[in-house]
């Protein structure tokens, strides 16, 4: 019985220092620094499957928000090629002049 206890104790007593040692190691990993902020690649939106674009989807709304200016100019230049984009672009198309920023 004592032998068995000793074994259990040995496991506990070798695990606890190991735990303490591992807990005390502060990890100061250098973060990967953000590369210079990139503009949204709005041209890629024209390649997206318009069937999967749901205007009520927050992700879609977020992308449209990011690409507001682009969607206007795209509606002018690509309208015949991509009807899915036209929907979004036309809302603003009446404002006229496609201003590239």
């Amino acid at each position, binding site marked *: 019985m004592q032998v068995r206890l000793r074994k259990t104790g040995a496991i506990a007593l070798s695990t606890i*220092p190991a735990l303490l040692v591992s807990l005390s190691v502060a990890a100061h990993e250098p973060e990967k620094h953000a590369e210079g902020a990139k503009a949204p690649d709005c041209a890629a939106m024209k390649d997206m499957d318009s069937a999967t674009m749901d205007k009520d989807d927050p992700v879609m709304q977020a992308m449209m928000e990011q690409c507001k200016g682009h969607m206007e100019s795209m509606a002018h230049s690509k309208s015949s090629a991509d009807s899915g984009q036209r929907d979004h672009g036309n809302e603003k198309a009446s404002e006229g002049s496609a201003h590239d920023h």
Partner: protein
Amino acid sequence: MSIRKLLACVRCLAVAGLVLILAGAAYVYLGLYPIGADTPHNAATYWLLESVRERSVARAASGIAVPGDLDASARLLAGGADYNDMCAGCHLEPGVKESDFTLGLYPAPPNLAEAHDVHGDPETRDQRRFWIIKHGIKASGMPAWGPGHDDERIWNMVAFLKRLPDLTPQQYQIVTARKDSAAH
């Protein structure tokens, strides 16, 4: 059991305990513990650390009130840009399978761009993520972001994490890019 036998037993246990404490101290001070991040924990240590982490986070996070508007697109935009700047190096992004951090950190940062088994219901998962982002996890590469970021900013990242596994690389790029203010 006679008193004498009992006493002998207690004394024997005390001696055994002392020996084990000394053995533990020797283990530490002789530097026998393999501290390298490239030596995995044994099963017992792994279980212990994982249980300590999960039970601790579950208890601490259980009372947190989750905002009702986590699906707002404004949160995705704010949280996405922060995620890309501060987290993607460790937690990856759509189309990226590994980084120096995922290869070298131990414990390895989970790939948050991949759909994985959810921890409980969505509310529990959001609470858990908020708590971990705010407070970090000791002795892992996961920093506490609370000291430099207010709760709203952290909730924005929690909101973004909910949608991150759905994003294609192109969608990710557009949502997380920081528009320069001139574009407004």
